């Protein structure tokens, strides 16, 4: 059975909304689609107006007052199966209402025509009920009318809920503002953090979610006040799409550390009227020109896309901690971040060592620019390399033995954590005292620095090593990312995105 749902927001408090939903006798007056609801010994008898006729069923209802959930199930009626739920939860001073229905009918060869329309009427009735009895209701997700052809619509892949497979869908993009750039997305990289967020690992995710923050494409339209970009320019969008632009960090060109920066997806853009942000697993995006980067002609777009996150995430600490000639840099982990860290550090002139669990990717590591390659599963590595490195970039998430890695630092050296994990890490103070070493973190880069990184990569011929995939392969790619089975970045060819079929 396919589930259909609608999500509504109302300014009325959750308890008040929930109370209204317990009185189906009022529904027929609230929603024109509902002909009547009559209580009976078997349950509530519904008659729904459908295409000039009626759909009839009797449903049993159970209310869970603590959870503010009403579940209902057909006991007899026109459906083969029918059931669903109302869910009400507080949202600020108002509330969010989810109405779900799932049903089956009996004519398989016409189900594709009948069921979406039937679902639409059921959901429209539910939206009208909330609007009339506990509204005004604002539609947050769910389509009650057909999509109108609009230049503001994009095809996308979205996760409907935490952990659910990504599905093709369509999303709105905002009309072009004066400083906005409309971008035809050509490629979008698949970052490990996309997988984390789709799984809801960090506990702050917003669904449905369109992931993707390694976006490369071509400008199709610009707002009247745009000065940096022109139609036809090759451009990119990375991890953030807005910031306050008035704090010290923004003033210093470190928008990524602005407390009010806005992430490219699964965030709310308060500078754009509270718009939900949706990422690059999509055919188009509209973004403020300040957060749109120029991709030099020398960089193929598919190789440039991962630079917008993986590239800048490694470039920024390499630059800050002065990787260059005469400096010894270690890169822990040879994955999406690591392989770019090796290329960039090598191009900066540093002597690069890869520290990987095994020697499986040694040939790759040396080809990418590493001078040395050691296996961390071999305890001898830590003895041999003790006190060696000026800088260690840790690109893996959840490094288990931080202390032993710190022993690899030279006096005054720094280990920078780039891989993200929700777990906290254990460090002995002694590891830092002996050799005055530092343990640091770093997060992407500012807009000016990201542009500098792109220009640097173009100059040195650095692109990501990518495996280009069709949109239909995204879920498979997620599994392979988790399994570490990619060299070194999946990049989605967004031209392969098609409407849900």
């Amino acid at each position, binding site marked *: 059975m396919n589930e259909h749902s609608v999500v509504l927001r109302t300014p009325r408090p959750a308890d008040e909304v929930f109370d209204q939903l317990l009185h189906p006798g009022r529904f027929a007056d609230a929603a024109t689609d509902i002909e009547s609801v009559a209580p009976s010994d078997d349950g509530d008898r519904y008659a729904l107006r*459908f295409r000039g006729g009626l759909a009839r069923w009797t449903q049993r209802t159970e209310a869970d007052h603590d959870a503010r959930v009403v579940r209902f199930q057909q006991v007899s009626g026109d459906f083969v199966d029918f059931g669903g739920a109302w869910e009400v939860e507080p949202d600020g001073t108002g509330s969010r209402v989810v109405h779900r229905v799932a049903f089956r009918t*009996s004519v398989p060869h016409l189900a594709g025509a009948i069921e979406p329309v039937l679902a639409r009427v059921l959901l429209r009735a539910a939206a009208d009920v909330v609007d009339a009895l506990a509204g005004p209701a604002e539609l947050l997700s769910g389509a009650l009318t057909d999509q109108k052809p609009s230049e503001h619509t994009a095809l996308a892949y979205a996760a409907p809920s935490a952990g659910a497979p990504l599905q093709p869908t369509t999303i709105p993009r905002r009309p072009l503002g004066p400083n906005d750039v409309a971008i035809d997305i050509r490629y979008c990289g698949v970052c490990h953090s996309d997988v984390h967020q789709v799984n809801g690992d960090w506990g702050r995710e917003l669904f449905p979610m369109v992931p993707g923050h390694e976006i490369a494409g071509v400008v199709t339209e610009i707002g009247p006040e745009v000065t940096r970009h022109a139609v036809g320019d090759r451009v990119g969008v990375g991890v953030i799409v807005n910031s306050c632009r008035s704090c010290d960090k923004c003033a210093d060109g470190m928008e990524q550390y602005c407390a009010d920066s806005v992430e490219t997806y699964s965030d709310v853009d308060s500078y754009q009227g509270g718009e939900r942000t949706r990422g690059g697993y999509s055919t188009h995006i509209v973004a403020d020109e300040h957060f749109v980067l120029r991709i030099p002609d020398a960089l193929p777009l598919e190789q440039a896309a991962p630079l917008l996150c993986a590239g800048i995430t490694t470039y920024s600490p390499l630059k800050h901690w002065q990787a260059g000639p005469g400096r010894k840099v270690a890169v822990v982990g040879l994955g999406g971040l690591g392989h770019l860290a090796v290329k960039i550090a090598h191009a900066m002139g540093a002597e690069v060592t890869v520290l990987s669990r095994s020697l499986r990717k040694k040939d790759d590591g040396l080809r990418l620019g590493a001078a040395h390659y050691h296996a961390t599963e071999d305890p001898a590595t830590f003895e041999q390399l003790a006190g060696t490195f000026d800088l260690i970039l840790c690109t893996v998430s959840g490094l288990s033995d931080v202390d032993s890695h710190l022993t690899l630092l030279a006096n005054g050296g720094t280990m920078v954590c780039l891989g993200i994990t929700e777990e906290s890490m254990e460090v002995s103070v002694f590891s830092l005292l002996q050799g005055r070493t530092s343990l640091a973190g770093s997060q992407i880069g500012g807009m000016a620095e990201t542009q500098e990184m792109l220009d640097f990569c173009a100059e040195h011929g650095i692109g990501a090593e990518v495996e280009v995939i069709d949109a239909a392969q995204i879920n498979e790619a997620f599994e392979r990312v988790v399994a570490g089975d990619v060299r070194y970045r999946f990049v989605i060819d967004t031209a392969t995105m098609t*409407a849900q079929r």
Partner: protein
Amino acid sequence: MNDLLMYPAYIDGKDVEHPQGRYVHTVTARAVLEDTMPALALKRDLDAGLTDPRTAGPAVVGGCALADDRMATDALEAAARAAPEWARVPLRDRLEIGMRIGERLREKRDDIVELLVAEGQPRDLAGPTLDEYWRADFSAETLTWCASQMQTTKHRGCGGQAIVRRVPDGVVCVNPPQNASTPNALFGATALLAGNAVVVRAPRGVPLATTHALREVVVPVLEEAGAPTGVLNILCGPPMTDLWLTSPHVNDIVYVGGSAKGLEFERAAIAAGKKPVLELAGNDCVVVWADADLDSAAAAITENFRQSGQICNIPNHVIAHPAIADALLEKLVAAAAATKPGYPDEPGVVLTPVLMADAYFADIADAVRRGATLLHGGRRLEVDGTPSDTGFFVEPAVLRVDGFDRARDMPAVREETFSPLLPVVVPEEHDGLFDEIVRFVNANRYGLRNSFWVQDESLVAEVAAGVTSGGVVNINDSHSAFRPFLPTHGGTGLTGGVFGEANYLMLRTTHLQGVNINRGGAR
């Protein structure tokens, strides 16, 4: 009481019922369109055995026994038993049977049409579609050509012979799709003529016309000819491909369906050691050159609207020479506006309910976002033609897409949309335009059919020489029509899979073998 057509399963030459007597009933598409929910409830109660079909009124026309796993297995065993004997029947006798099937199909056409209409196929399409099978697939021209490919004998000295022949694979299972079940079941029956035993699974949604056509047209001819029992088995049930893939009795599987699942099936079939014969999606192109007969070209292009675009061998996109683009688009828009929804039994109706309307709206919205212009369409319609948020039909849509650059990235052009949606690509005029068009057509990832409308004989020759993808390339003819001798099915790329080519089942379900008879002593 109704005069109902109730078909048990046909296994090993016998009528076989489901152990619990279960049937799948046909409630007319008209009843479903007129008052949907009561019709759905009636169908549910009929299938559950709660309502007697004989007293259920004119909305019910018949039913087919549901097959359980045992019956599905029995059908395969019966086919495997029949296959060796059937393979020894001389080819000319089987060819004769094929021609008699064609004649009988012609005679029984109107009865089958009534059932197709009951199942939702517009009357204006159902009859002509059936006619194509006796005119093409079961025609003397097609069958004798296939036969000519089946065996060549060279006589060698001293009475020796070198024979190269095609030998039937054995048991062929056929899985026709819901959107074109009866035609593809008839197509599947041509595998019989090569000497294979055949199992056809009629889909549960629309089993009645398919079962009727096989039982009233093919089975009587086989029985009259004394074919072994079990050579054709007909059942209705859930998809049986998993069983077929694991059964030791099955040699080939004819799979008709979408490309993504079809190519997945191809891999599974090969892993299981079965020959997959694929009939997947098409994304057919019609090219209209500057010198084309525009009225005829427009008529061929609007074949797209048949069954609301939900058949594979119809035009899916157009390339119009810039010199005639405006005139052609005007004709297409007029034709789209004149194409209305309706009940399948009404004359003049070609549109049917759209199963993926969301994709239609999304494809249009995306195309417009990518710079296409919507010239007509984009609304949902009720059966009486009024715009409505809850209609089952959509307006035929015409999109203008200027330039190949836009078209190349546009899913509405690149992919099969399976809705009445016609993107018309208007490239810029330049010296190498014709060559660029040929390259564009050959770059199509699908490969069912392509059509060209062009008068200039040197360009006709260019098309014939240069367009090598697809199962058929038409020049100045109906796009989707079946013609005797020419292939009616098959293709390359996403249409036919790795081994895809024009598909004559007599050839695709047989294998080449050499026979060397030496009578002169070994040299």
